[in-house]
């Protein structure tokens, strides 16, 4: 289909795709790093029973004690993973 693009129409379409807030974009771009943190915590929990029990007892506190402040989605996924095993 051939479309003709008048200036006004082009302007409207260009306005439609506004940038998402930079902090949202940054958080999404940092997912691979967050994922690595997740994998490291899971691996350690599998190898270290005391750490695993501490995580199950109080996940946020245990992570904070370790100096980790993962994104809440990663925390939710960790919680799910710990409850599965």
């Amino acid at each position, binding site marked *: 289909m051939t479309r003709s693009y008048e200036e006004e129409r082009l302007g409207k379409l260009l306005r439609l795709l506004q940038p998402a807030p930079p902090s949202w974009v940054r958080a999404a771009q940092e997912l691979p790093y967050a994922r690595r943190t997740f994998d490291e915590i899971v691996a350690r929990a599998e190898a270290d029973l005391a750490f695993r029990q501490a995580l199950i007892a109080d996940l946020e506190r245990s992570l904070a004690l370790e100096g980790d402040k993962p994104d809440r*989605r990663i925390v939710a996924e960790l919680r799910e993973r710990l409850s599965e095993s």
Partner: protein
Amino acid sequence: MTALSTLSDADLVRRCRTGDSEAWSELVERYSRYVYAICVRGFRLSDEDAEDVFQDVFTRAFLRLETLRDGSALKPWLAQLTRHRCLDAIASSSRVEPVEEVAADVGSGDMEEIEEAFAVREAVAGLSDACQDILDRFFAQDQSYRTISHELDIPAGTIASRIARCLGKLRSELEGRNEPAEGSGE
């Protein structure tokens, strides 16, 4: 323009699957406006809901990229993920409007326009860096002539004509893309 920005979606997905975090960053950059537009323009979510959906869509995409059989279908896959999550957000909010009605509403004009806007944005990528920059600042970022003049260090009186020139080039780019391939001699 970076080397990654010229990759096709299929190649970009392939690189992401190898754990290339720069490729992932480009994927987010390429589709962040699209996902955002579906949330706030298509489904008119609040900022809070839109942020949740936005992060959730990219988290799911990141975790499930392996399940996407055809990397070139990245865009419709992301659109579908976003639409589903938007509907979930609406269903769990206190809105009284039935979710089916919202879905039917958004399914028509708004999504079509967002798709068209994405095609226009892809065409913008074929313009010079200067044109890309000034069009994005003026239209997408809603910057005033004064701000553009200050930030790009160009006379304010020339901005309107620069925008008009870049729009002309964009129109040519789009019309070139829309011409039937047959008989084009290329």
